[in-house]
């Protein structure tokens, strides 16, 4: 071998330890940050400048409209008329009750508030991973709460009844979204299992069902359920309109849910099925005890995403004349007392803000869960 027998001219032993020293200024501090993040290359610099200019152009007028030029108080359109008037928040303030509850009788709104409180009381502990009693909590949310909520909101059978046509605003939005998710969840599981079944007819029907609902627009489904469903029922059977919208939404979202859950089922290794089999568990025992608990945990993010989609889609019930949040906001644009150039924009921005808070919250939560599952579940 070459070079080995010669004494190596490079032989070297370090005599001192070079201490850890701070990076040169270019790499740290504000300047370093700016350099690497904003002005790394000439192209970056140009882009940064262009973007900054655009922001300068957009943001200040936006802030002006939203805050500085906005009208915060007033009791009629006069307050919001004028040359340089921004958002008409007085309108939102005056209509806030309607936006939240619709035409739910004012003296009975405590029932809605109580329902909301009961919901939060169930949701918060189930959403925080470290809180125990998940199973009990889920039962409360999926079984007990819906019954209480139903009785509180409709008044049946003990309280003064409030018909659903008086419900509206955020109340309806939440009712549609929550009922949609609660109903579509078990239905989605069944459909997902059906689609993976090897009974050909069960499988075919699940596939047809899922593909059908995923292939048609929700608004045609809603229209169908809102005005055409009675045509397909015997003459003397009738449902509440809201209920029918709920059925439409639930069927629609169960198809999406089924696909999410199927993804989870597919991710469970075959060995788990075989182990369950080898231990003489029946099909349903195996599903309930082994497969579904794992699969559902895997797809929590997907489920939350479906829920976000559903929550946004509730705005479509407006098209069939149910006054959800967006519907009631829009209806109030025609209130002669409040009509002004700023009113519609303000109303829409307000509605957008409410939807955003809910959806963004949920999407953050789903991202959080995804991270958790990712670290906790490596195989």
């Amino acid at each position, binding site marked *: 071998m070459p070079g080995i027998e010669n004494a190596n001219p490079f032989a070297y032993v370090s005599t001192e330890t070079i201490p850890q020293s701070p990076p040169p200024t270019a790499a740290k501090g504000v300047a370093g940050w700016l350099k690497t993040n904003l002005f790394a290359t000439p192209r970056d610099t140009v882009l940064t400048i262009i973007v900054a200019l655009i922001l300068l152009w957009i943001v200040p007028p936006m802030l002006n409209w939203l805050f500085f030029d906005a009208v915060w108080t007033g009791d009629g359109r006069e307050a919001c008329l004028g040359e340089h008037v921004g958002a008409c928040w007085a309108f939102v303030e005056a209509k806030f009750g309607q936006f939240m509850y619709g035409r739910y009788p004012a003296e009975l709104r405590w029932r809605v508030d109580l329902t909301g409180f009961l919901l939060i009381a169930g949701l918060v502990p189930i959403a925080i991973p470290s809180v125990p009693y998940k199973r009990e909590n889920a039962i409360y949310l999926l079984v007990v709460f819906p019954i209480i909520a139903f009785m509180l909101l409709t008044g049946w059978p003990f309280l003064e009844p409030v018909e659903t046509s008086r419900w509206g605003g955020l109340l309806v939005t939440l009712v549609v979204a929550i009922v949609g998710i609660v109903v579509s969840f078990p239905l989605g599981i069944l459909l997902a299992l059906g689609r993976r079944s090897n009974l050909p007819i069960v499988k075919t029907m699940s596939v047809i069902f899922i593909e059908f609902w995923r292939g048609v627009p929700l608004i045609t489904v809603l229209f169908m359920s809102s005005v055409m469903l009675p045509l397909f029922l015997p003459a003397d059977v009738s449902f509440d309109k809201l209920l029918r919208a709920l059925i439409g939404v639930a069927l629609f979202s169960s198809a999406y849910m089924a696909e999410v859950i199927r993804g989870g089922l597919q991710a469970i290794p075959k*060995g788990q099925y*075989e*182990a369950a*089999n*080898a*231990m*003489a568990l029946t099909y349903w025992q195996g599903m309930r005890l082994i497969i579904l608990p794992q699969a559902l*945990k895997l797809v929590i993010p997907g489920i939350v995403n479906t829920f976000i989609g559903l929550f946004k889609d509730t705005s479509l019930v407006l098209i069939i004349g149910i006054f959800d949040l967006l519907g009631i906001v829009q209806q109030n644009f025609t209130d002669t007392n409040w009509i002004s150039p700023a009113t519609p924009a303000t109303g829409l921005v307000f509605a957008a803000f409410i939807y955003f808070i809910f959806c963004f919250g949920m999407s953050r939560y789903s991202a959080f869960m995804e991270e958790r599952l990712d670290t906790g*579940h490596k195989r």
Partner: protein
Amino acid sequence: MSEQAAPAPAKMEVSETEVAVELINMNKWYGEFHVLRNINLKVMRGERIVIAGPSGSGKSTMIRCINRLEEHQKGKIIVDGIELTNDLKKIDEVRREVGMVFQHFNLFPHLTILENCTLAPIWVRKMPKKKAEEIAMHYLERVKIPEQANKYPGQLSGGQQQRVAIARSLCMNPRIMLFDEPTSALDPEMIKEVLDTMVGLAEEGMTMLCVTHEMGFARQVANRVIFMDQGQIVEQNDPINFFDHPQHERTKLFLSQILH
């Protein structure tokens, strides 16, 4: 099946008369592919059988047919006196009597070790939870990991997981145990842990069918070694004769590769 408390099985010899598993002219196809061809095999109660053979020779498939994880298409399989047919009830009965340990353990990751072990006794044997836990702890002690009972499978090493898998099977108090390459997914150091556990089981007289290439294990515990190739049983013999005087060409070739 009868409920039993954690048993302390006596050391047992091979029974001369009691048949544990019998395969008669058994054939299986995957689609057009004939995986198992005319398999005839009689396993007496208490026998320890090691099955060897090249990859793809049908070892796993044969063993999986015995507890009906795979369906056979021709011939008979009789386990513990029960013939395996489409009858779901009989399949369940057989599965309750036959424990199985997989190459990749297949523990349930969402359940603790203890819950893994008590699941089947509770739901299949309808045992009270307390009793199931007692039995489970008994077997976890047997496999020397009682202290891990409340951990989750993901927190255990491969060898420990495989021992849990064995304990889990034992909790159902099976009369026959099937092992499908139980050590081949393990690091060398862990293989020994698991083999020791299996040797212990064998010494207590459990009827065992074990697919493995651990020839040391075969020599030590097997009554019989079966060699399979291309879906057929090519040769069977007691371990000494099998290793020292293989008859069939295929066997000789195979052994020459395995034993260097």
